[in-house]
């Protein structure tokens, strides 16, 4: 369903996106897809060597979930700016809740834009990342 610029308002919540549970094999898959082969994401022994109690998810995988939150709502290809600050580590078996909210509507360079903020949290409410975004929306 297309979201139009005229139909959104500051304060609107984006439809919540639940991702996960994250599996070990998803981390292997994301390593190959992204090219980030840092073994702390895939090899438990290496993760333990650096003081973790097991592998952790790539921060960029979690940011990708945030990207999907935006494109599920505004459409694929709508992202103009997307910035996150990483807060907490994510481990396999965790599920994540992605939430966003519109903070501004504006027009710039002939495009209708929505700005907003987002968070991704674990089901225990632990913050994984927070950020802000700008997406371009179609007009009616």
């Amino acid at each position, binding site marked *: 369903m297309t979201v139009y610029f005229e139909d959104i308002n500051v304060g609107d919540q984006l439809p919540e996106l639940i*991702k996960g549970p994250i599996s070990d094999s998803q981390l292997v*898959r994301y390593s190959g897809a992204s090219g980030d082969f840092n073994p702390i994401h895939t090899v438990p022994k290496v993760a333990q060597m*650096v003081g973790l109690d097991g592998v952790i998810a790539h921060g960029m995988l979690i940011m*990708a979930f945030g990207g*999907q939150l935006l494109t*599920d709502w505004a459409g694929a290809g709508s992202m*103009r700016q997307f910035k996150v600050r990483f807060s907490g580590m994510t481990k396999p078996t965790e599920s994540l809740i992605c939430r966003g909210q519109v903070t501004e509507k504006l027009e710039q360079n002939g495009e209708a834009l929505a700005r907003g903020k987002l968070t991704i949290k674990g089901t225990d409410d632990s913050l994984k990342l927070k950020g802000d975004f700008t997406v371009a929306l179609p007009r009616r």
Partner: protein
Amino acid sequence: MVDPSHKGRVFPSYEFTIERGKLHEFLLAIGDENPAYLVDDPPLPPTFATVFAFWGGMNMENLLKQIGVEMWNVLHGEQEYETLAPLHIGDTMSGTARIADIYAKAGMNFVEIVTQYQNQNGVAVLNDRALIIVRG
């Protein structure tokens, strides 16, 4: 302490050609089933540029080594992407990374790496900004 004289340093450019197979592999890995990516000339997911850097041979580990920082001692603090023009399958991205800033705060060192991507026509298409936290 990271030597602040590295600020402004520009690293050799690298290239990556956007492939459809790589896009599908990425979508499978993140679990995004949006059918809008399955058309002939699809847009790219918001964080797909991660692929340009890692598979294009940016080599973050080597870049950090050149400014005296070891990969095992860093955290990815922030990441930002800015889309400047549409990207298409078959386009060749040319990425140039530079050290935009180096500063210390709360006992930690921060290194800001900005990578600008141009397409094969020399058009600026994407900015990538990573904030790296150096521990200790």
